[in-house]
Every structure is written in structure tokens, then in C-alpha cells.
């Protein structure tokens, strides 16, 4: 059903297809080493560096027996010689069965998927989309909560600029989620994203206070607040510690609460939280490998 289909935007796949990927990812979690892609070549084209995402894809491909070719930043590709994206994609299409691509310009992955002779998986196009992150977030939520339906999910920190937050909010709108949006006033969720919550008539709360929300949520999705997002450094100083999660704040939390974070973390979760069983962010990163195995295998048509 997903054979030869590019994944550029989270909405390119239906809700049923998302669930199918999550089920397949579960099977790969049970048996991560299966040499079902031995005859395949996966190209990872990283026009800007993203070590975590690239290694996760390469690990997924390698564990399935595929060969991986590619580059990890544009300085080691023909881009420095002035080659257009179109030419790079047309050329690389000849060498591989599927392209995984990260590019700093928004819309680059959609364009590549239209030019390429092979399917393209978007591993991040500027501030636009990063659908495999959204799928691994969905996988982590489903796995820890047993279902995606009817959950209370809090998003904390920079809700304005984080594409991870935007895509996950939009994806969760399919599952009757109650949203809790915790951010400084300067970094509130954009109205274009909030409108997807409103269109579905889903419940949401909006506040600047993290501590008060902890006891009522199933998922706490933390994000990093970046200093450079503030025009006035004083505004940053005021909020920077308001969204730091410490272990003692979790005393009244529900027993099923799990803490997610797209990583890298700076100081928004103190290290004393890491040993709390509620901390799930490193396992979340591991889940990314299973989700990417599921995507590679289903798009290459090796599993259905």
C-alpha cells in the first residue's frame, strides 16, 4: 500500500498508513536484525548536518542488510561546485533505490520527490516538515500508553518555532487528544496550528505554568527554548528557568506519565530526571530506528 510512495509531509500518509507503520515498527522492535533489504541501496543525502537523524536512518538501513551511500553535509557533495538540487537528485536516483534527504530549504523534499526516479523520505526540510520524527513520537506515545486515543498531552517550551511540535499536534488531532499548551507568551503555538485543534472541536488549555499541569497529563512533551528566539535578552532571562523540569516536580504525576523530548536537550530537563522511570527520551530516540526500518521496508515494498 505504501510501496514507492514518497513521505514528504506527515499528511502524505493516511491515518491507516500511520497505524500500519507503527505496527510494522513494533515487529522490528521485536526482531531488529532482519536482512530483508540486502539487494537494496539507500542514499542518505544530508545537505546540512544532522548526525542524530542520519545515524538513525543508517542504522535502520544497515540492520536490514541494505547498503548505504551518501554524504553528511553539502561541503562533501557537488553542491559546493554549484550543482542544482535537481541535478543532484536526478544523478543520485540512478545509484539507489530510495533517497533519504535533509535539506535547509523548505519545500526541497517535495521538489526532490517530483524529480527523483525513486521514492524520497524527507528527513527535515528547513523549518517545514520532519515526518519521521512525528511517526517516532506517535510510536513512543502509543507504546507507552497502549493507545493513541483520548490522551492528555502537554507541550512545553517553544511552541512557536518547533516544527516537531506543529507536526505532532496536527497528527494527534486524529486521536481525540486533549492538548495542554505551556509556553512563554512570546512562544505560543501559532494560530495556523491551533486552528487544527479548533476545527476538530478538541479540548485544550493554554498557560505559562508548567508545575500545575503535571498531575493531569499522560505525556509531557518538552522542547528546548532557544535564546536567539527572543528580541530582548531580558525576556529570555525571565522565562529560561520557568520551563526546566526537575525530578522533584514529578511527585504528583500520574503513574503512566512519560516525558518525551525530540533531543538534543540542553538544560530544560535536569539530569536527575534521567533515572526516573517516567523519563522516556532516550528510548524515544531508539524507537526512531524501528520506525525508520518500517518506513524503508514498506516503501521499498519488501513488507506490506
Amino acid at each position: 500500500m505504501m510501496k514507492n510512495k514518497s513521505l514528504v509531509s506527515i499528511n502524505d500518509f493516511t491515518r491507516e498508513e500511520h497505524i500500519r507503520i507503527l505496527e510494522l515498527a513494533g515487529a522490528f522492535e521485536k526482531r531488529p536484525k532482519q536482512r530483508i533489504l540486502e539487494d537494496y541501496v539507500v542514499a542518505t543525502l544530508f545537505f546540512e548536518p544532522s548526525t542524530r537523524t542520519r545515524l538513525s536512518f543508517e542504522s535502520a538501513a544497515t540492520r536490514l542488510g541494505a547498503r548505504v551511500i551518501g554524504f553528511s553535509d553539502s561541503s562533501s557533495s557537488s553542491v559546493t561546485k554549484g550543482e542544482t538540487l535537481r541535478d543532484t537528485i536526478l544523478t543520485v536516483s540512478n545509484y539507489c533505490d530510495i533517497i533519504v534527504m535533509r535539506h535547509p530549504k523548505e519545500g526541497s523534499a517535495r521538489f526532490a520527490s517530483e524529480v527523483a526516479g525513486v521514492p524520497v523520505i524527507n528527513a527535515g526540510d528547513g523549518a517545514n516538515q520532519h515526518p519521521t520524527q512525528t511517526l517516532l513520537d506517535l510510536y513512543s506515545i502509543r507504546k507507552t500508553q497502549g493507545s493513541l486515543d483520548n490522551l492528555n498531552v502537554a507541550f512545553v517550551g517553544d511552541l512557536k518555532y518547533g516544527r516537531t511540535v506543529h507536526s505532532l499536534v496536527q497528527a494527534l488531532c486524529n486521536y481525540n487528544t486533549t492538548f495542554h499548551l505551556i509556553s512563554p507568551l512570546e512562544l505560543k503555538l501559532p494560530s495556523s496550528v491551533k486552528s487544527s485543534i479548533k476545527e476538530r472541536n478538541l479540548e485544550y488549555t493554554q498557560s505559562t505554568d508548567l508545575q500545575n499541569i503535571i498531575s493531569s497529563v499522560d505525556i509531557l512533551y518538552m522542547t528546548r527554548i532557544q535564546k536567539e528566539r527572543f528580541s530582548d535578552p531580558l525576556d529570555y532571562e525571565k522565562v529560561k528557568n520557568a520551563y526546566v523540569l526537575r525530578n522533584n516536580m514529578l511527585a504528583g504525576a500520574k503513574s503512566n506519565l512519560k516525558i518525551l523530548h525530540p533531543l538534543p536537550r540542553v538544560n530544560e530537563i535536569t539530569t536527575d530526571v534521567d533515572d526516573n522511570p517516567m523519563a522516556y527520551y532516550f528510548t524515544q530516540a531508539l524507537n526512531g530506528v524501528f520506525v525508520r526500518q518500517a518506513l524503508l521496508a514498506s516503501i521499498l515494498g519488501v513488507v506490506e
Partner: protein
Amino acid sequence: MEKEILRKELKVSAIENGTVIDHIPSDRVFQVIKILNLTEYQNQLLIATNLDSLKMGKKGIIKVSNKFFKSDEINKIALFAPTATLIVIQNFEVIEKKKVEVPDTAENIVKCFNPNCITNNEEISTKFTVIDKNDLKLRCHYCEKITARKNIAFR
């Protein structure tokens, strides 16, 4: 009534052959001239603006001799002046009169307002879905950002 006003104007400054673009919002007349590249036009060109209009209060009108617009040009007019009417004139007679229609999609007409969009960084045709025809909003097929009327620029 509207028809009479039009006839009066046609008497004053009729063109023999060509197209009259009527019911342009007054403040967009010069933009329409620009997007249609009429600043370089070598034939007779009549421009009037801030005319009284029953429908619109004030309106503008452009009469272009020996010019019959193609559909991509009509789409440009529609995006900028959705109230416009096109009147095709031959031998001083009105041959055809039609309101422009805001298209569902705009291909390679408009520039994406997002500077980080791939279409502003490589030679790629732009493609937009018109998501709001009244309060013009276009969603870029590539970067998915929304270009609103106030940010529209043409390629």
C-alpha cells in the same frame, strides 16, 4: 444603470479593438498595469481611476488597444483585482463581457513570500493552492507556507 455609465465612458474614450478591464479596485490600477507589463506597451492605453461606481464606490478602468489577454494573464488580474470585469471590444462593439474568476491554483504566476522556500533558491516553477478566494490566501505546494494578499509578488 451600471451599463449606462459604461456606455458613457466608452463614448468618451472608446477603443476600436482590444480589451477593457473594468471594476478594478481604485488602489490597484497601477499594480495591474505593472503585473501585465503594460508600462512598456506601445499601443493606445487609456487609464482612469477613482471613477464613481455604483457597485464599488470608486473604481478604476484600463483600456488596452489591440490586446486580448491569455488565461495566465487573466489569472494574474483575478489574483490582484478579483472584482474586475473583462470586456472584449471589436470594431467598437462589445463582443464578450465576463467577470474574472480567482483560480483554484496558481502555477508560476506568484512568488512564494517565504525567502527560505526552495522555489526562491532554485529555478523551479511555483505552484500554489488558493485556500481563501475572498481574503486571498495561497498555500505553497513546496514549503506549505501561506502567502497572503499583502505579501503577493509576481514572478
